[in-house]
């Protein structure tokens, strides 16, 4: 049976990531290893058995009839597991039968995998007509009930040995691997490192084996272990029906002989139960291997289980150190972010994604939050919205709207504040709308979660909102896939203003849109903001866009705010060396370019250095920068910066310390 559809889009790690001999290798999966151990034990039983036990007893049948195992009354030491109705020794039969059942499974699955890899590669690589034919064939082949056809085959073809049976079973083992290999190739060939290999002119086969195979390995292995158990199941099924090879002992054949000799009714438990137990152990072993490999192949499942463990270990409710509410931040603050610390608890240590982030958004203003990717700006957005994903957690700080600290809220109280006070225009509008429900429903459920509105009023309101963002009325009954990227983003804006919130977080609202559409969307945002007087936090890395849209700008570097200033003075006279770098990287304000600062060293986020966070990339670094962390201090009118350069007393400060 299929263990679900394996989603194939996440094995993004390049091949080198799967180091086999590092201690945190994903292959060291408990379930997988346990499965391997179980199957190896069974295999050893079959392979080493003949050395310790006379397996001829399986055939001769010279022993006494129907003797129970030795630990039961009437059992004989020379037949430790008893004998059956023909006087054959059970232990000897089991020793002979076990490896032959395993052999059929391995052989059939490996042949099936081989065929599947060839067909799947052809379909995935050559594509076109070949792809169509192979896909259609394999799709219809999976739906044919294999055992029915096998039974028909087996009733005509006399199967003399296990190899013949394995060959026949292999005829049904190829569609799964074919589909898998094809979809993996289609996914992987879009990956940048595979594309690079293409561009560099590497031959297809080399790319297949060097670049793709290592990435497909866990998937292929899972498919193989799954295939082996399916093949063993098919073979056993035929044997149980009495349609397998009858001269070779096999586990299914023992069950067949037991059931046809009424062993169940006659209470000869030792006849039918041991082969079933061995088979079950085999199946459990392969099953564990398969789900273990699934976890290896699919990091999300791994992450999910580990984050559960993580939370269980740390206690479900995070203990948050709340900032003391002393700072009022003035009457005009719509949103206060107060000393926010967000840590990610990874197996390799604690990553500090936000380190004491502290800012206010004034009523009716747009605050831009900028920085290169990975600087923690999206983490801050998620923390404001209270949706930091595990293994991340807010460990300290407060997020206040109207003097209510969202970090301390949960359950119903938090749900009520959400969207009514704090809405989001998401980053990937492409994927932010539920693909299977119409726009009407998605806008309605946001409204209905917070207000009681009648049907007609609801519709009128949704139409009004769509109109506000310049979308035609028919959009209301459309599905997300019927809309363009820009339209989707405008639907998201319409949704965000549905409840007239205090604050909107716009997380790179224009990324992934083309330039013209970007302008339209940005324009829409501005209009909405003007009309509603809503406050906004605009996350982005596009300095040019920020310059046009925001009132104040907050620059983030490696989890820390380094500069907060009105947009004019930030661009005219950036104080922090990092901000200066950002602005220099824009060739001209008119011509917008994504931020791309690569020179210099970044520190390890798990282990920030003492002193300034920017010291490794800073041209002006001084002694004090390496020793003491600069605070975010107002150096000019409304212009805050965290840099020692603007501290006239800095030299005396270290001297003081040294003294």
């Amino acid at each position, binding site marked *: *049976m*299929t263990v*679900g*559809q*394996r*989603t194939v889009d996440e094995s993004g790690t390049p091949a080198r990531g799967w180091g086999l001999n590092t201690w945190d290798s994903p292959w060291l999966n408990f379930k997988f290893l346990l499965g391997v151990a179980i199957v190896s034990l069974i295999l050893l039983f079959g392979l080493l058995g003949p050395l310790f036990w006379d397996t001829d007893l399986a055939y001769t049948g010279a022993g006494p009839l129907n003797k129970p195992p030795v630990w039961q009354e009437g059992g004989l030491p020379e037949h430790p597991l008893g004998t059956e109705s023909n006087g054959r020794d059970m232990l000897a039969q089991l020793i002979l039968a076990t490896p032959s059942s395993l052999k059929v499974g391995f052989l059939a699955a490996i042949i099936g995998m081989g065929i599947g890899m060839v067909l799947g590669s052809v379909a995935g690589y050559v594509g076109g007509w070949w792809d169509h034919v192979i896909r*259609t064939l394999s799709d*219809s082949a999976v*739906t*044919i*009930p294999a*055992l*029915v*056809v096998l*039974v*028909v085959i087996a*009733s*005509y073809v006399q199967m003399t040995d296990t190899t013949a049976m394995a060959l026949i079973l292999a005829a049904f083992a190829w569609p799964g691997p074919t589909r898998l290999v094809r979809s993996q190739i*289609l996914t992987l060939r879009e990956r940048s490192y595979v594309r690079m290999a293409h561009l560099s002119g590497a031959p297809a086969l080399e790319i297949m084996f060097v670049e793709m195979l290592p990435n497909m390995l866990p998937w292929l292995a899972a498919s193989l272990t799954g295939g082996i*158990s*399916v093949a063993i199941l*098919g073979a056993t*099924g035929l044997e149980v029906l009495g*349609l397998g090879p009858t001269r070779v002992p096999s586990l299914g054949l023992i069950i067949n002989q037991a*059931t046809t000799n009424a062993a*169940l*009714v006659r209470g000869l*438990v030792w006849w*039918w139960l041991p082969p*079933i137990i061995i*088979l079950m152990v085999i*199946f*459990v072993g*392969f099953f*564990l291997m398969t789900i273990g490999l699934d976890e290896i192949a*699919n990091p*999300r499942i791994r992450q*999910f289980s580990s984050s*559960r463990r993580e939370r*269980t270990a740390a206690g*479900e409710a995070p203990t948050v150190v709340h900032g003391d509410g002393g700072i009022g931040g003035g009457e005009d603050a719509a949103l206060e972010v107060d000393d926010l610390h967000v840590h990610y608890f990874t197996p390799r240590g604690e990553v500090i994604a936000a380190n004491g982030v502290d800012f206010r958004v004034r009523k009716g203003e747009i605050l831009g939050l900028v920085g290169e990717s990975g600087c923690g700006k999206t983490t801050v957005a998620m923390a404001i919205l209270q*949706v930091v*994903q595990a293994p991340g957690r807010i460990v300290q700080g407060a997020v206040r709207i109207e003097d209510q600290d969202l970090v301390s809220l949960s359950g119903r109280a938090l*749900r009520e504040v959400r*969207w009514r006070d704090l*809405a*989001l225009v*998401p*980053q*990937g509008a492409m*994927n932010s709308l*539920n*693909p*299977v429900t119409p726009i009407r*429903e998605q806008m309605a*459920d*946001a409204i209905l*979660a*917070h207000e009681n509105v009648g049907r007609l009023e609801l519709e009128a309101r949704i139409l009004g909102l769509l109109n506000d963002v310049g979308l035609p009325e028919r959009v209301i009954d459309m*599905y997300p896939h019927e809309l363009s990227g820009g339209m989707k983003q405008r639907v998201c804006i319409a949704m965000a203003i549905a409840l007239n919130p205090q604050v909107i977080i716009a997380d790179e609202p224009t990324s992934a849109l083309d330039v013209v559409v970007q302008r339209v969307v940005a324009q829409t945002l501005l209009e909405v903001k003007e009309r509603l007087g809503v406050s906004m936090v605009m996350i982005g890395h596009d300095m040019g866009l920020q310059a046009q849209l925001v009132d104040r700008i907050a620059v983030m570097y490696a989890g820390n705010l380094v500069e907060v200033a009105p947009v004019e003075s930030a661009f005219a006279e950036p104080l922090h060396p990092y901000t200066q770098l950002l602005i220099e990287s824009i060739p001209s304000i008119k011509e917008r370019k994504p931020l791309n600062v690569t020179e210099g060293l970044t520190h390890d986020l798990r282990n920030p250095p003492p002193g300034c966070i920017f010291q490794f990339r800073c041209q002006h670094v001084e002694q004090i920068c390496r020793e003491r962390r600069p605070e975010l201090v107002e150096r000019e009118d409304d212009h805050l910066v965290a840099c020692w350069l603007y501290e006239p007393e800095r030299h005396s400060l270290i001297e003081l310390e040294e003294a």
Partner: protein
Amino acid sequence: MRGLTREYVLQRFLMYLLTIWLGSTLIFVIPRLAPGDPVSEMVGRLSLDAGYIENADKLIESWKARFGLDAPIHVQYFRYWGNVFRLNFGYSLSHFPTEAWTMVSDALPWSLGLLTVATVLSFSIGVTIGSLMGWRRTPRWLQLILPSSLTFTAIPYFMFGIMLIYLVAFELDWLPATGAYSRRVDPGWNLPFIKNVLTHAILPVVSIVLTSMGGWALGMRGLMISVNNEDYFLLAQVKGLSPSRIFFRYGVRNAILPALTALALGLGGLISGSILVEFIFAYPGTGYTLYQAIISQDYTVTQAIANLIILVTATSVFLLDLLYPFIDPRITYKRDMR
């Protein structure tokens, strides 16, 4: 735009025909690839049993003519197709005056009933368990209990069936071990009969459900985890929707689509497994009849059943395919669906 487009229906219908063609052709070709032909084999066996049969050659000839085996292979093939379409498979060899089709159609309702109940139960229970396992907000005690439902996942149906028969039917004597109803009751629409049928169905259904639901649960868990990471799932949270709405409309609603695809693809395997369950429980469905036809060398009934099972499987998959666009509005847009 939405729902069923003609192109989609046509494409699925062609697929349906292809599946039937592929399966039926296999069934036609295989016996003819085997050394000897079924009739000579059968007569040979008869003469072994009876010691000697007079004019065995003539018998073989006349039987061959009767089954059309004397014609060239392509003629046979076309005739075979004509017969498959008219559901005309000739007489049963082992129960001579009875038509093969009659024997098959007597068995079909039992299998359909058993399998439909078992599949619906195992799929819905499995999907429910999997959805809860893949959701972060599931209460902790439930999260700890749920994995225990996967205990029997790795065990094939029929092995579990054998153990159930031994424990529940023979040792505890709670439920009947084999058959679909006892001889004591009158078949018909009366209460004792229906009760009797239901008690007989419990063990086979339980053995299928308990062993197969874990597969659905695991698949669904993976799908839910993927959905959990989708942007729309996050937005639903930020919108302040109630957890139950997020769970059903954003989580399960999206995750179940691939699970349904897997169901359509898994039907063949389910039906295969049920043959063994019917054999173990001597349940008079198509699987058991197929087994009996095979051990009694009943060539026509074997063909009839194998064709029927392929037909039924393909039809169920086709029906699921037709339902799909109503559940997933994207389907007609996605070229590369499965």
